[in-house]
C-alpha cells in the first residue's frame, strides 16, 4: 500500500478477512508463523499493539467493546496524550482537548452529549461505528484499517460514515477496507481490491462486472496458509 491509496479486502465469510486485520493490529489471540509486514520501513509484526497504534496504524473494530465507567471523552483524551507523548509534544489539558474534539464531532454528525457517555455502552451498531470514525478523526493515522465498517449499518448511517472517511483521506494517508459488501465500495472508491479466496472446495469465481470496478484494478487473489489444515484460503 502506498500513501494516499485506498485498498479493499473482500471475500466470503470465513475466508480470513477479519483475522487478517486483527493480525495487522496485533491481537493477542493470533500468532503469526510466517510472512512479513513492513510498515514505513519497519517490521510491524515485531511491534506491540500500542506501538503499532502510535506508529500510525488505526483499526476500526468490527464489534467495538463496551468499557463501562470510562467516558468517550476520557478515552480519547488518554489516546491523544499518548500520541503527544510519543511525538515529544506536551500533553493537552481537558479544556484544550475539548476544543479539538468538539470540532471533529461534526464529521460524524454526533452531538457533544455523546462525549459524556461511557465508551460504547448502550450504543447502537451505527453509533459504535461512528465512534470508531470519530476516534480516527481525532487521533489521525497513516493507515486506517476499517474492519467491516458497513456491517449493521443502514443506508443513512453508511453514508455518514463513508463521507467522514472520504473527508479524512489525504494524499498522505491510506485506507484498507475489509468488507464483503459491494455497496461500501460505491461510497469509498478503492484503487485496489484484494480477494481472499474460499477454501479449495468452495471457490467462487470472481466476476469483474459484479464488482463494478470501472476505474479500479483487480490486483491479487490472496493466500493465507493455515499451518494445521494445509488448505489455501
Amino acid at each position: 500500500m502506498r500513501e494516499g491509496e485506498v485498498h479493499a479486502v473482500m471475500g466470503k465469510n470465513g475466508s480470513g478477512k477479519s483475522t487478517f486485520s486483527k493480525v495487522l493490529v496485533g491481537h493477542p489471540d493470533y500468532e503469526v508463523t510466517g510472512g512479513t509486514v513492513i510498515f514505513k520501513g519497519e517490521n510491524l509484526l515485531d511491534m506491540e499493539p500500542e506501538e503499532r497504534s502510535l506508529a500510525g496504524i488505526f483499526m476500526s473494530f468490527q464489534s467495538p467493546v463496551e468499557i463501562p465507567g470510562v467516558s468517550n471523552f476520557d478515552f480519547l483524551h488518554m489516546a491523544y496524550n499518548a500520541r503527544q507523548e510519543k511525538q515529544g509534544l506536551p500533553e493537552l489539558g481537558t479544556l484544550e482537548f475539548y476544543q479539538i474534539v468538539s470540532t471533529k464531532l461534526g464529521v460524524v454528525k454526533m452531538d457533544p452529549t455523546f462525549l459524556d457517555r461511557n465508551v460504547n455502552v448502550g450504543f447502537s451498531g451505527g453509533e459504535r461505528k461512528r465512534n470508531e470514525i470519530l476516534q480516527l478523526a481525532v487521533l489521525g493515522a497513516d493507515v486506517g484499517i476499517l474492519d467491516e465498517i458497513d456491517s449493521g449499518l443502514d443506508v443513512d448511517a453508511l453514508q455518514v460514515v463513508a463521507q467522514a472517511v472520504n473527508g479524512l483521506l489525504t494524499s498522505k494517508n491510506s485506507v484498507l477496507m475489509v468488507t464483503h459488501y459491494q455497496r461500501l465500495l460505491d461510497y469509498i472508491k478503492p484503487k485496489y481490491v484484494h480477494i481472499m479466496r474460499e477454501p479449495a472446495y468452495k471457490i467462487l469465481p470472481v466476476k469483474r462486472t459484479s464488482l463494478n470496478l470501472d476505474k479500479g484494478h483487480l490486483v491479487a487473489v490472496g493466500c493465507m496458509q493455515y499451518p494445521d489444515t494445509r488448505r489455501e484460503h
Partner: protein
Amino acid sequence: MASCSTFTQLFLPNSPTPSFSKPRFKHIKATTTTSSLPLSDPLVLRIAETLEDSLTTTPLPSSSSLQKLRDTSSNSVLSLSWPSKKDEAFRFTDTSFIKTSQIKPVSTPSVKLPTDLAHTIFPKLVIIDGYIAGSERINELGSGVFVGSVNEIDCEVIKQRVFEFVSEFQDGDLFWSLNGIGTPDVSVVYVPKECRVEIPLHLMFYSSESEDVGSNVLPVSNPRVLVIVEEGGEIGIIEEYFGGDGKGCYWANSALEMFIGEGGKVTHSYIQRQGPNAAHTKWTVVRQETSSTYKLVEISTGGKLSRHNLHVQQVGGETITELSALHLCLHEQTQDLHSRLVLDHPRGTSQQLHKCIVAHSSGQAVFDGNIKVNRFAQQTNAGQMTRTLLLEPRATVNLKPNLQIIADDVKCSHGAAISDLGKELKDQLFYFLARGINAETCKKALIFSFGAEVIARLPDKSLRENTERH
C-alpha cells in the same frame, strides 16, 4: 483524680457505682484451681496484661466511663481466644502476622502530626497512637457540641449519657475487647438534640511508631471513639487512618461506637490508608433509633492486613442505612469487610454496595455481608450488591453475601459479580492498546472507573478529590 488500677486493687475512688471485684490477669494466671472459669488463652492473657501494663506507666486521669469500659472488656477477654482459620469469622483472614509478633503498646506517642500530613479544611481532632493530641476549630461545630476526651467532659448530662452507652455492645470479638482494655482514652463526640452540625468533623488517626519488617516487634495503638447523636441531631464525620514511615510495621486496633437518636442523621466517611506493612483492625458499631439515618462510605487501600467489622443494630423502625465500601489491593495485602446489619423493627430501608479490586497476584479481598431481617422487621426493603474486579492471575476474592430473613413481608435482594481477566476484560484491554494507550494506563483507568461509583458517594467534594488523587 488520677487512679491507676493495679492488679490487686479492687476499688474505684470516684465511681458513682458500687465497686465490684474484677479479676485481673496476673491473678487469674496464679490461680490454677478456678475450674468454674472457661479455659483462657494464655496468648490472649499475655497480650491483655501487656496492654494493661502500658497504661499504668502513663497515668492518665481515668473517668468512671473509661473504667467501666476497661472492666467490661477485661471480663469478656477471659473467654476469648486468638482467632484461627477454624473460626468462621476468620476463615479466610490470616492474622498470624499479628499473632506471631511481639506486641508493644505505644505509651509515649509523639505530640504533633508531621506538618505535611496535617492538612484538612474541616474542624479536626487529632489522635496519635490512641492519645488525643490536639484539636482545631471545634467551636465552629455549634454550641452544645462536645468533641474531646472523656476525661474532659464538664457537662453532667453528657457524662451520664457517655456512661450509659460506653461499651454497651457485647457482641464484639477479641480485637474489640483488646481495644477496650488497651485504650488510653475515649474520644467523645456529642451532638445535642436538634443540633444540625453544618460542617463535617475530621478525626485524624495517626500511627507515629513503627518497626522494621522482620524485627518481629509490632507497636500497637488502640484508639477509641464514642459518638452520641441525640434526637434530631445531625453530623458528618470523617475518620481517616494513616501512618508515618512508609514501610514500617505497626498495628492500629481501633473501635468506634455510635448511637444515633430518633430522627438523627450521620454521614460517616471512613478512609483507611495505612502503610503497606501495617495491621489495621477496626470495629464500627452503630445503633440506630427510630427514623434515623446512617450513611457510611468506606475507602480502604492500605495495610498488609485490614479487617473492618461493621455492626449496625436497628432499635426502632423506619430507619435508613446506606453502606458503601471500596477496597483496593494494590500490593500483597488482605482487605476484609465483615458487616452485620440487624433489623428488628418494621419499614427499615437499607442498601449495601461493596466493591473491591484486587490488582496484585498475592492480594486478597474478603467480604462477609450479613443482613438479618428478623421477625418483626416487616416491610423491610433491603438490598445488597458486591462487585469484584480481579486484575491479576492468582488474585483472590472470597465473598459471602448472606441474608437471613425471618419476616415474611419484605423486599430483599442481593447480588454478587466477579470480573476477572476473562474475555471481556482482555477485549477491553486490547481496545486501549489498539489506540496507543499502554496497559498501565488502561489498568488505572479501569480501576478508577470501577471505584468511581463508591468515591462519588463521599459527601465532601474535597475529600472526593483527595481520594481520587490518592
